[in-house]
């Protein structure tokens, strides 16, 4: 019994670790898409950020400088997205795609030029990363049945960025539903004309939204290379940006449901990792590939309206052009 409980707790713990970049990216996508800008470039921004964080942390020896560089790089790419989609009214999907492909090529190119390690950045020492924070009494608490292991395995032992990711969910909710900026943000994604005729700049609001998206993606990227991992590896985002996008849709463009979707997708990932190579009764070898594909399948099923309905912001994807 205690063993199963521990196995379960370890999976939950892994879920949190896997879900952290998803949560950050989903919140990033939330801001961008609430403002009416489709953001499929979460993946590319996160990859760029992971590279910047890994590289700068390795050079400077500071995880914090790495984080700052990650945010900077990601915001820079957000601004490219903004320039294309907001200022020049370009196609938002094409712009996002361009950023993803550009990031793929640029990270490796710059990585080889700077570190000559085939696109990776140097392995980071413990002091150069955001390390796990062991909460007080974590070891002592294990004597308490059930809760003790929970406290030790799930609550304690996470790095700062995990907590930051969870905090951004509350922050996003607060900003979007409880502030003036949030009201305008929601309005601009539904009916930009209403905001424009109220004397508020549509472009200004959208730029702020994509910059916030950049900051969150930056943190997500830094998490991958200087907190969860110990350096940048090429293509290390491995589709997480798209999973986050799926989670955002799954959460119907709302912060807390999106968080839940991220945790669910993270749990599937953690579960697949745990069941790798395990023989299951009747099923034989666990089909982990099929578990890993579930987020995509579920999102398609949701989009098809077979389970609930996803309603995107009404003005999403359409550039705002004042009619002549």
């Amino acid at each position: 019994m205690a063993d199963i409980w521990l196995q379960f707790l370890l999976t939950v713990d892994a879920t949190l670790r896997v879900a952290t970049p998803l949560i950050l990216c989903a919140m990033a996508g939330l801001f961008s898409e609430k403002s009416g800008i489709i953001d499929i470039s979460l993946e590319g921004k996160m990859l760029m950020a992971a590279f910047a964080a890994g590289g700068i942390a390795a050079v400077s020896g500071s995880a914090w400088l790495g984080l700052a560089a990650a945010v900077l790089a990601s915001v820079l790419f957000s601004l490219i997205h903004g320039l294309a989609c907001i200022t020049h009214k370009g196609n938002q999907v094409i712009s996002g795609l361009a950023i993803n492909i550009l990031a793929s090529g640029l990270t490796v190119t710059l990585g080889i030029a700077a570190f000559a390690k085939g696109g990776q950045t140097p392995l980071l020492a413990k002091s150069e990363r955001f390390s796990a924070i062991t909460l007080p009494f974590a070891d002592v608490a294990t004597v308490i049945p059930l809760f003790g292991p929970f406290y030790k395995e799930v609550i304690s032992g996470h790095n700062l960025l995990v907590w930051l990711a969870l905090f951004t969910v509350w922050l996003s909710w607060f900003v979007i539903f409880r502030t003036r900026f949030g009201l305008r943000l929601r309005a601009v994604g539904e009916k930009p004309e209403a905001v424009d005729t109220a004397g508020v700049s549509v472009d200004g609001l959208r730029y702020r939204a994509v910059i916030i998206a950049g900051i969150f993606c930056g943190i997500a990227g830094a998490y991958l290379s200087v907190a969860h991992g110990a350096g940048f590896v090429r293509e290390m985002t491995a589709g997480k940006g798209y999973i986050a996008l799926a989670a955002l849709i799954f959460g119907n463009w709302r912060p807390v449901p999106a968080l839940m979707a991220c945790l669910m997708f993270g749990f599937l990932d953690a579960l697949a990792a745990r069941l790798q190579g395990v023989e299951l009764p009747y099923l034989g070898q666990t089909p982990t590939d099929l578990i890993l594909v579930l987020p995509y399948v579920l999102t398609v099923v949701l989009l098809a309206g077979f389970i609930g309905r996803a309603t995107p912001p009404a003005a999403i994807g359409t550039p705002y052009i004042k009619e002549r």
Partner: protein
Amino acid sequence: MSKKHSISAGGADTAAPAIKLTAIDKSFGTVHANQNVDLHVASGTVHGVIGENGAGKSTLVSILYGFYSADSGQIDIFGQPADIRSTADAIAAGIGMVHQHFMLVPNFTVLENIIIGHEGSGSLLDGIKAAEDKLRTIADHYGLQVDLHARVGDLPVGLQQRVEILKALYRGARILILDEPTGVLTPQEAEQLFSILDSLRVQGVTVLLITHKLREIMAVTDTVSVMRAGQMVAHLKTADTNPADLAQLMIGRPVLLSVGYTKAQTGDVVLSADRLCLHGNTAEYALRDISFDLYRREIFGIAGVSGNGQSELLDILAGIRELSAGRLKIGMTEITPQAPLSPSQIKALGVAHIPEDRHAAGLVLPFSAGESAILGYEKDIAAACRGWFLQPRTIRAHCAGLMQAFDVRPADPDLRTSLFSGGNQQKLVVAREMSSAPDILLVGQPTRGVDIGAIEFIHNQLLRLRDAGSAIILVSVELDEILNLSDRIMVVNAGRNMGIIDRSAADAQKIGLMMAGVPVDELPAACGDRP
């Protein structure tokens, strides 16, 4: 705010006018939308600006509201030069605007919609609370009651417009611009709007009413300016003018009150509608129990305020929408909800259709004129397609023929459809649909956005087709068009048939009452007599 009431069209009064525009000029490329426009609106009056579609009214108010900036000219608001470069500047100068298409977020509450841009600082919840108190005061003051916590998308159109007015007042507007405010309203809602405008005037608000409807100008304004082709052609006191004079000023030549209408001998029934119903998106029924017969060699007009079901009726007759209940008979063929027909099947029964919206439905703007001229007839026009394949030469020749017969200019089948003028685009659609010599022609808003010369041409073509033996169903929001062309007129209100009256018994007053929802058999007795 200036407390003095002054009704002054010329601006000779010493009190500062609420709005004074001097020599406003604005071009879009080669289009000179506003030429040297002057306008004086006295404080505390209702001033109308009337003109045809495309006369430059919308450009003018867009400049006043900061949407565009003028190429040259000056704006003074309450005697102060105003440098209006953005909407925010206009709002700060005390100008509010109710747009033709509402600027409201459907899934926000009334309150949230009103405070966008003026939320106050600090917590949003506090801001909303403060706004609520202020709004109740404003609503009581001007008699504009509306549930502040309702979702805007759930409100009827008339109330949404009220929200727009409240929004402008909340932002401190002392000048209220309304751009074609009655286009989407029922006559009753329009009446309510006019009484709101009256009470606003009493409270000292200056109203600028932009419209192309003479009736509104006469009903509610103190003074009126007339625009034509980008220029102001007259400034008048409403009391000193009349609709006929205004109409003449608007179009620059006497109105064609009637085309060469002559009665024709109607034939047998070609289409019969029996209690047609259509479920609506918001209302329970978009159409309810519509019954009528259509005879060969007649024009059957359908009148109604736009949005009362006539568009849906056309869609059903054309097969674009399936009916929810009832029975439609075209020739010998019966169409029921159980046995619907597709648009192409209905077309095969000899039905042609000039759609209401030629830009979205009737034409494909990026196509060449030749390609647009076979839209819907790809299979039918001789040799336009051979098997699966298009025949460009035949398509071009066919289009050239249509262009010659219907005087479409320039007569170039290879020119992109979007590069033709509105009138010529419409002639192309009319030509295409008439060339199949249909038994039944469905016509929606045939002259919307079409210049006067083309209107005359199209009207005559419709009569010619009728005389040649076709039956025509004509849907138009232009009452004059209906009255001038129709042999019989059906009036719809809220998706119901208010009655069918013969041309000889029809007049604007009667039809107007029916459009407002009075069934034909409940019309006041006095209406029955022709003046």
